[in-house]
Every structure is written in C-alpha cells, then in structure tokens.
C-alpha cells in the first residue's frame, strides 16, 4: 500500500480560480466560528431566561422551563437539525416559506437552520447551569435583597445573577467549547464549515491524513484559545475575596 505523504498539499491550487486548499480550511473555520458564536449568544440569552424561570416561585414558568430542558436534552442533535432544516420551513407562512426556500442562497438557509438548532439545543444546557448557579447561592442573598426593598426583578438583576454567572463560568466554558464541536453537524446539511471543507479536501487530493491532521490541529488550537479566553474572563470578573482562589 503506497500513500504519498505531501504536506505541501495545502498550498496547491484547487483548480478553482487562484484558490489553494488552505483557503478552503480558512473559509471553513470562518463558517464554524460564525455558526458557533452567533448560536452561543442566542443560547446564552434564551438559556439565562429559562434558567431564571426555573427558579421562580411561579409554577407555570418553572415547569415550562423544565419541560423545555427535558425535550431538548433527550432528542439527538441530528434529529433536531433535521427538524429545523427539513420540517419547520414547510410550516412557515407562505411568504416566509418562499423567501426561505427560494430567495435565500442554500448556504444562508442552512446557516439559519443550524444556528437556530444549536442555539435552542445549547439553551437547554445553559438553562441548567444558570439554575444551578442561582440555587447554589445562600438563601440569605435573596432574603437580604427582599429585606432592603428590592422587588423580584431587581433582586435577580442586582444580587442573584451577577453572582450566579460568576460561579458557572467553568461549566459554561465547556458548553461554549461544545457548541464549536457540535457545529460540525452543519456539514450534514451542506454548509461548508471546517469539517465539510476537510472532507472535500480529502476527496479532491487523496491526501486524507494531511487534511484530517490539519483539521484536528485547527480544532485543538481553537479549543485551547477559547479555554484561555474564558479563564481570562473568569479572572477579570472575579470578585476579590470571594469563591475560587480568593486573592
């Protein structure tokens, strides 16, 4: 069995314009980041709202959030992606449907589906972290907030959430990393993100090992940088004299 190792493959022309294979990886990485970052921001917002709902005394709000979490945690990501990409568009109002299916570029509609899918999927996980963070705070915190005359909204905004978010930075970091890894499912509905570009390079060049090695390195470096970023955030927002390495 002969395999021609060729690490220069990334600098060879793809035969399309003046593109080299490395350009494919760069554009793939761009899509991966574009999917993951946007989905993450939406997931943080929805997840925080749901997490707060789970801790409210209102039974209806709490059980809605609990139901949401169970639903989105117990259905495989791929099934959810198919639902958002193949099923939901068919039930949109007619005008929106035409816009989504015909007027949008295929890449754009795939992008929207993936972002919605990952955002709602990750929101369930963020919700659980936010809830854990709020419940981990001593009861005295909410009691004291109410005692000084805060209403419920003020209590969450000024007392509970600022502390809860600081506690949950480590578990949130791992969800943040997961959303980057999970964004690879986008390759299954034709979005040319990092994994899809890797596969394509492997098929075009027959230099499979080089292509997948480069992809692995990119994911690895991405992971390390995000982890570094999050621990920088954690240090930045740390309240002196409080939990976690009081300094």
């Amino acid at each position, binding site marked *: *069995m002969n395999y021609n190792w060729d690490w220069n493959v990334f600098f060879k022309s793809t035969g399309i314009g003046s593109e080299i294979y490395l350009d494919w990886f760069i554009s793939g990485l761009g899509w991966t980041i574009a999917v993951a970052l946007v989905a993450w921001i939406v997931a943080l917002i929805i997840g925080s709202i749901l997490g707060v709902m789970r801790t409210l005394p209102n039974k209806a709000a709490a059980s809605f959030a609990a139901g949401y979490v169970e639903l989105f945690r*117990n259905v*495989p990501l791929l099934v959810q992606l198919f639902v958002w990409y*193949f*099923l939901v568009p068919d039930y949109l109002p007619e005008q929106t449907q035409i816009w989504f299916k015909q007027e949008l570029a295929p890449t754009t509609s795939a992008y929207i589906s993936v972002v919605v899918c990952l955002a709602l999927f990750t929101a369930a996980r963020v919700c659980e972290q936010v809830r854990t963070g709020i419940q981990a705070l001593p009861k005295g915190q909410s009691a004291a907030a109410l005692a000084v005359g805060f209403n419920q909204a003020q209590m969450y905004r000024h007392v509970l959430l600022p502390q809860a978010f600081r506690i949950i930075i480590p578990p949130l970091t791992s969800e943040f990393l997961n959303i980057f*890894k*999970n964004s690879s499912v986008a390759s*299954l509905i034709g979005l040319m993100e990092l*994994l899809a570009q890797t596969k394509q390079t492997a098929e075009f060049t027959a230099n499979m090992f080089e292509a997948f090695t480069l*992809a692995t390195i990119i994911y690895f470096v991405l992971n390390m940088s995000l982890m570094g970023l999050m621990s920088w955030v954690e240090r930045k927002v740390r309240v002196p004299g409080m939990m976690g390495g009081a300094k």
Partner: protein
Amino acid sequence: MDFTQIVPAMPALWEGMLLTLKMLVLAVSGGVALGTVLALMRLSSNPLLSGLAKTYVNYFRSIPLLLVITWFYLAVPMLLNWITGTFVSVGAFTSCLVAFMMFEAAYYCEIVRAGIQSIPRGQLHAAYAVGMTYGQAMRLIILPQAFRKMMPLLLQQSVILFQDTSLVYAVGLMDFLNTARSKGDIVGLPHEFLIFAGAVYFVISFGASTLVKRLQKRLAV
C-alpha cells in the same frame, strides 16, 4: 399528518433500532474497558504512561465526534491495509464502532478517574498490607467500589452516546434515524417519520435518564 404509514415500516425500523442498540452496547463496553485502562494509566506514577493517557484524553475531547467518525471511516480500512499488507474490507459498522469506542473512552476515562480518586487511600494501603499486589488491589478492592460510585455518571454518559449514535448518518449506516429518514422519503411522509424517530429517541433517553436519577438517589450515601 398521517402516522398510519409508519405501521407497515415497523419491521425495517426495528432492524434499524437493533443496529443502534448493538452499536451502543458494543461501544459502551469497549469504551468503558479502554477508559478504565486509560484512567489507571493517568493515575500511574510513571510519567510516560500518565502523559500518554492525558494526551489521548485531551486530544479526543477537543475534536468533534463527527470528525472522528468521518476520519475513521476513511482511515481504518487504510490503516489495516498498512498493517496487514492485504486488502481487508472493514465496513462502516466496524469503523464507526472503533470511532465511538476510542472517542467515548476519553470521556469514560475522566469519569473512572474521578471515581477511583474518590476512594480513600487507606483502602489501597490496607490491600497492600494484607499482601495483595497492585493488580489484585485494583481488581478486588478499588475498582468494585469506584464503579459502584460512578455508575450513575457512566450510565448518563451512555444515554448521551445513545443519542450520538445517530451521527452514523454521516457515513450512511442504516441505524434507527437513517432508516426512518429513508423510509419516510420512500413513502413520501418524511415529516411524520422524522417526528416519530424523534419521539422514540425522546422516550428512551428520558426514560433512561429518569431511571438513572432514581438509581443515583438510591446509591447516594
């Protein structure tokens, strides 16, 4: 919505589910076995062994499962070819199984390591004191206690793996989800079949997670 057409497709869907379950059981057994070995390596005082295990775990935890599945699908036949020198056909099932085992082993390793570390050191010392070797102490004293403690976490990870097996769609293996998709396309009812597949995954995962939580409460000291 017309769900009646799912009934005639049941035998095919059952075949798909069998493949999913077979993959799950084999991947969990292999993953836990390899994960335990890795955990023991990580806890070893030999820096080479622990460094090796640490690199393995960090490596697999920073790349997407889908990348591993895709890569192994292409690479496993080629690697076997190199090693054996002859052409062996491997098939998507085997290469996916190897991918799941090796990927999940990284996650199981961390669970097992935490489990072992939660056992008081005195247990090991006592085992040595009565004349056991390292192997005996691990096999007869430490691991049985550690596994009991970490059973809920191992099971929860396996529920996640059950959902992740659907990713074999990427290499065209006919698991439960892929069977449902293709049957739905054939009879022209893709939405109904997709919802049905989602509901089945939900019921199994939710049921299993609920049981795991109950087990966790019972095992809690």
